[in-house]
């Protein structure tokens, strides 16, 4: 065995979890070297051309990468299209600067400005600017902006890595990213997490040389030219990680979640039709909450019936036989919608919001109810009203809905009245739950906790008091579940509590057997129920 620096481990901060064992590759950007400047006109033309080429390259990368990566690259494109910003650079060229010098000094000034910011998020953006700076300079020097060839599965090490360089590397064979600086909140870290590439940042000084490397995204360590003992321990950690992930995935694929022999139905919450793209969604028992507020943020006013129908229909088609619970517009409170919600309420959380607002604005509500009535014939649709206080409100909503169905049918349009339920989020509704003639109840634990605990949930100073496991909140959840059990009415919970494994024992003990969670939490929640069910962790 050799001693010395060779087998040392370097510790940084985790940016993306996972493990990589592969060749060690340094990719520090080289933007040194000389370029011969031309006349003022030639320089201006050269920069204009380089900017156009860079725009094209970035657009191409964005198209291939899609999703979040595309949004990240959009900032670079926006900067290239910023006339104020670009004009200043052309002005510098007009005064005699070479194209690359003018470009670099403008970008460096911006980068320095971002780096001097207090805010870590803004600091992290400076690597996007460095990315853009180097790309344009490389083009000006006649290089095509091509990346160094990196072997598959490599542990790539750089000072910092810009997002576009990350996207140019072929990660299909695995690999990992070790940055000497960098930040867990950078765009490249988001990309690494989205791709499942392990990434460690802020490693400080790491030797230039090394043949192979071990990168542990969980322990945030980089080990160069490891000895057999280091390798053995690394493989052991990797195996533990792999097993725990694999078991969550395997449990996800099982048809049902079981707790003490009882079936626990797990639904997903979606905010948008696009949320159904998440692969784990297919393992859900249905959609427990589809929010519809996204329809209200369309640029040209409130959405028409066809746009709404198309969205509801798309979700029902995705779900097939499975139930889909769509919540009618829940605007107001902390969700103002111009042209819909009221301005100037002294206390909007206790104001005209949810169903109250819809009943006050029947002309807007009617459009949504028409679209829902038409969608109801296309699948297993349930509709719920938010922010209901008294049984009269449910009945008023039902009457409006029934009248609309009747009118549609009279006009020969296929429509039906779906099952109608309510959100239980006003304490009065939870306490008087038996007074509602609802087909189902869904507990909105975020608002319920806010109202029971008298804590504005947007006020960070109250966070310690804002405990959804407060006995008063659990008491109301248990009463609602108990009423459902006795009356044979389904009761689910769709607030943040359902997606929090720490809250699960309490929710199951309250008698809840249906939960609606965010899609990314589905595997973990199913696994937690399985663990609790097999005797662990329930006190």
């Amino acid at each position, binding site marked *: 065995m050799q001693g010395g620096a060779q087998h040392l481990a370097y510790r940084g901060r985790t940016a993306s979890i996972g493990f990589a064992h592969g060749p060690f590759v340094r990719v520090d950007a080289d933007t040194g070297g000389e370029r011969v400047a031309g006349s003022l006109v030639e320089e201006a033309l050269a920069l204009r051309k380089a900017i156009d080429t860079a725009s094209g390259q970035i657009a191409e990368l964005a198209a291939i990468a899609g999703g979040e990566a595309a949004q990240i690259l959009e900032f670079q494109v926006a900067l290239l299209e*910023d006339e*104020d910003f670009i004009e200043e650079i052309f002005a510098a060229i007009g005064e005699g600067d070479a194209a690359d010098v003018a470009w670099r000094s403008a970008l460096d000034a911006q980068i320095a400005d971002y780096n001097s910011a207090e805010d870590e998020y803004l600091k992290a953006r400076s690597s996007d600017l460095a990315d853009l700076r180097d790309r344009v300079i490389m083009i000006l020097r006649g290089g095509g902006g091509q990346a160094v060839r990196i072997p598959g599965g490599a542990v790539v090490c750089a000072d910092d890595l810009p997002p576009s360089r990350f996207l140019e590397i072929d990660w299909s064979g695995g690999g990992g990213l070790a940055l000497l600086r960098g930040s867990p909140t950078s765009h490249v870290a988001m990309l690494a997490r989205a791709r499942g590439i392990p990434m460690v940042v802020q490693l400080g000084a790491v030797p230039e040389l090394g043949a192979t490397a071990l990168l542990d995204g969980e322990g945030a360590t980089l080990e160069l030219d490891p000895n057999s003992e280091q390798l053995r321990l690394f493989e052991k950690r990797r195996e533990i990680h792999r097993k725990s992930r694999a078991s969550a995935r395997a449990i996800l694929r099982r048809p049902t979640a079981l707790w003490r022999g009882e079936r626990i139905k797990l639904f997903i919450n979606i905010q948008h039709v696009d949320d159904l793209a998440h692969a784990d969604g297919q393992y859900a028992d249905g959609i427990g909450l589809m929010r519809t507020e*996204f329809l209200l943020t369309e640029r040209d006013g409130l959405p028409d019936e066809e746009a709404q129908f198309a969205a509801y229909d798309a979700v029902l088609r995705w779900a097939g036989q499975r139930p889909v619970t769509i919540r009618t517009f829940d605007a107001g409170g902390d969700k*103002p919608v111009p042209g819909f919600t009221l301005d100037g309420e002294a206390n909007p959380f206790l104001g005209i919001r949810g169903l109250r607002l819809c009943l006050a604005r029947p002309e807007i509500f009617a459009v949504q109810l028409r679209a829902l009535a038409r969608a109801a014939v296309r699948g297993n649709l349930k509709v719920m009203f938010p922010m209901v206080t008294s049984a009269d409100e449910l009945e008023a909503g039902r009457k409006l809905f029934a009248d609309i169905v009747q009118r549609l049918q009279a006009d020969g349009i296929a429509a039906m009245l779906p099952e109608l339920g309510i959100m239980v989020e006003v304490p009065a509704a939870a306490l008087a739950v038996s007074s509602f003639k609802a087909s189902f109840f869904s507990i909105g634990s975020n608002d319920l906790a806010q109202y029971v605990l008298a804590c504005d949930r947007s006020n960070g100073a109250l966070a310690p008091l804002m405990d959804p496991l407060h006995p008063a909140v659990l008491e109301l959840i248990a009463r609602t579940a108990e009423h459902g059990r006795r009356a044979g009415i389904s009761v689910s919970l769709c607030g943040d509590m359902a997606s929090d494994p720490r809250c699960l024992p309490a929710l199951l003990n309250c008698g809840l057997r249906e939960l609606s969670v965010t899609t990314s939490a589905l595997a973990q929640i199913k696994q937690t129920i399985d663990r609790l069910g097999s005797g662990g962790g329930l006190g």
Partner: protein
Amino acid sequence: MLDKADGQIFSGNVRLIHAVGMHARPAVKLTKLAKKFEAQISVRVEGAAEWINAKSVAKIMAMRAAHGSTIEIKASGGSDAEAAVAALVKLIETDFPDEVS
């Protein structure tokens, strides 16, 4: 929310509710929307000395508008100054939603 000032200047105020303030993604959305209008549009953090061109992403970022700050918007010229203010107010007020596809 909108009040017509003298002549052809339109203005509005809106609170920035975006969790991380005026960062890359919101700044890109704001400038993209502003560029759809012919009018000259300026913004500033309430009370700031300088008005900033709403069509320049670099300048919007440099404005460093924090979460909870109030953004003042004014627009003039073109035939769409009033609509521009309304559209930008709506964008900020609704927390920079993704466009519905």
